[in-house]
């Protein structure tokens, strides 16, 4: 137990250190584009982390988490359009909007179980998708190009790709630590217990719904933060951010890294995006390989790709 904790701390330190050194390596290799790809990876890692909180620890398979990416992204677009460019304001708006949407849809979705829950979260995400598609004030389906990235203290520091990258990294590390704290807290224990055996939790006096809904709201708000970073990275926002395929990809990331493993979620996001990028270069027909890989992982490994390797070794 203690050893596992220490191992996790070492792994986390190494992973974040690697991320921290990446821009320096990229600069040395003369390939600044790496930083751009990596920023995108960080944004998705935040989203995967948030999804893992409810999926891995809460046992709630949300198939509509892309909606929160979109909500976060549109928080940037809408506030920027109104002249508010501050990153803090964008983050705050995204967190509030994401939490609110999660509260409303979660309160209905969590009345259901199993397949119903998967389907209803998917349907709510579609609803959000169509809402933004028909919202012509913000370009509808065409989306909005951001005039500039968010500002910090009125300065346009984030224009520099590396500053944006380190901001995203700082957010990721902060949210990772938050998730570690949450999963180890009283609340986290109730959440995990509910995933294991909801009737047992009721029989000792907990009302699972409240804890699940709270976790759902936290996760939604966190995913919206990822949306803010994604919008800044792409300098562009559109309803395509909340396409249901995106929701599927988020679940894939969490599973690739091994569910209920916060570092795994980050690793899964990294792996999935690199794989996508790499396969797309290898062949036009990359979905063929990606899909096959996905099926193999599901059929032969319980703990994602990391488990696949571990399993091989014995």
């Amino acid at each position, binding site marked *: 137990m203690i050893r596992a904790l220490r191992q996790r701390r070492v792994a986390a330190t190494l992973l974040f250190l690697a991320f921290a050194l990446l821009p320096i390596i990229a600069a040395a290799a003369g*390939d600044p584009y790496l930083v751009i790809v990596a920023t995108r990876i960080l944004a998705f890692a935040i989203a995967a982390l948030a999804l893992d909180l409810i999926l891995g620890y809460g046992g709630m398979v949300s198939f509509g988490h892309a909606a929160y990416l979109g909500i976060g992204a549109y928080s940037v677009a809408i506030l920027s359009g109104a002249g508010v460019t501050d990153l803090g304001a964008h983050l705050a708006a995204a967190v509030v909007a994401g939490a609110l949407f999660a509260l409303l849809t979660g309160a209905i979705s969590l009345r259901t179980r199993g397949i119903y829950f998967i389907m209803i979260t998917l349907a709510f995400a579609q609803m959000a998708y169509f809402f933004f598609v028909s919202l012509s004030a913000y370009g509808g389906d065409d989306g909005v190009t951001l005039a500039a990235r968010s500002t910090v203290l009125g300065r346009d520091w984030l224009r520099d790709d590396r500053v944006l990258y380190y901001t995203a990294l700082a957010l990721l590390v902060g949210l990772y630590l938050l998730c570690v704290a949450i999963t180890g807290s009283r609340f986290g224990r109730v959440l995990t217990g509910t995933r294991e055996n909801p009737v047992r939790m009721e029989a000792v006096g907990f009302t699972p719904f409240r804890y699940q809904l709270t976790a759902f709201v936290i996760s939604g708000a966190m995913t919206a933060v990822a949306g803010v970073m994604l919008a800044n990275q792409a300098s562009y926002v559109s309803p395509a951010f909340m396409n249901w395929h995106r929701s599927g990809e988020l679940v894939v990331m969490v599973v690739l890294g091994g569910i209920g493993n916060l570092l795994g979620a980050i690793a899964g996001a990294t792996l999935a995006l690199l794989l996508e990028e790499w396969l797309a270069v290898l062949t036009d027909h990359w979905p063929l390989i990606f899909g096959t890989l996905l099926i193999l992982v599901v059929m032969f490994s319980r703990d994602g790709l990391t488990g696949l390797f571990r399993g091989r070794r014995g």
Partner: protein
Amino acid sequence: MTLTRTTFAVLASATCLAGPAAAQDDDKLTIGVLLTLSGPGAALGEMARNGFQLAAEEIGDFGGIPTEIIVVDDEQKPDVAANKARELVERDGADIVVGPIFSNIAGAIVQPVTEGDAILISPNAGPSNLAGTDCNKAFFATSYQNDQMHEVMGAHAQAQGFQNVFLLAPNYQAGQDSLAGFKNSYEGGVAGEIFTQLGQLDYSAELAQIAAMQPDAVFAFMPGGMGVNLVRQYRQAGLEGIPFLSAFTVDESTLPAQADAALGFFGGSNWAPDLDTPENAAFVQAYEAAYDQVPAVYAMQAYDAAHLIDGAVKQAGGTDRDALIAALEDAPFTSVRGDFSFGPNHFPIQDFYLTKVVQREDGKFATSIVEKIFEDYQDTYAADCQMN
């Protein structure tokens, strides 16, 4: 000329070993082609790729300079496209990016390309903001401004003296722009105006309303699969007595699936396969021989884009960006469309036609020019363009 696809692995190792690869040296021209090659819109992207490839094979080295062409797929996802665009410009050192097909992708890639010191040439998408207030000296379109096709149909409806036209478009930005464009040049009455759901399958509810109202004509903007559904259901509902005017709804990308259901339906366009110029005849013949399909405007515009680049590089004598932009503004090439020049907003000034779906002697379906509606027509947004 070498036609390659970026290999991430190769690039990654190359950049690690060889250092900066993004150097823009004058003895090599790099063209990135960023099109939708997977997903529901892939058919259009493939046509454009084919058109560009056909021209590239004719040209060889663009402007006499060794040329590398890198083709990438934007997956019709704006954020993916933005990244691929940056990759093309910053990592591969593309001097020119040709793309995209869809307007929503254009919004996502125009900044990464133009701020990365490359030039963006759109073989199809022509959103109003890029033609007007957000016009950009490093952005060119070989296509049209989106509204123009709709304005053609509006003018036609006006000329026909229609008093009562029913309007139909999907509920998204391009759909709303399209109906606005139609009404720019049509002053008669509107029998009804319906925005359908994006990707809608079944149009019977709308068709029932049309049947009940018996308008003089229907104007529809239903690109891709939606157009296939609408056109077939329109015919099956027995409405063919009501003239069907459209834009981007019956063209060579969808006609194989619409076939005789679309016969006699009207469209507005800047071109049709039977446009009578020698260059066009050669292009259509070569294209059909190479790809066994009738080209649509997307293929034609990408074909023109390649020849435009060839001419501009020749005139500029290299890949210097400012010289290239200046050369591009002169449009130093012969378009298959005949007369072609750029307006101050870098959108074409060209002729527009009323087209009609016909079955050719070889049994294939194509659009055919009925009459010229606008001559040397410039879009209405050019006035808003303050290019610096």
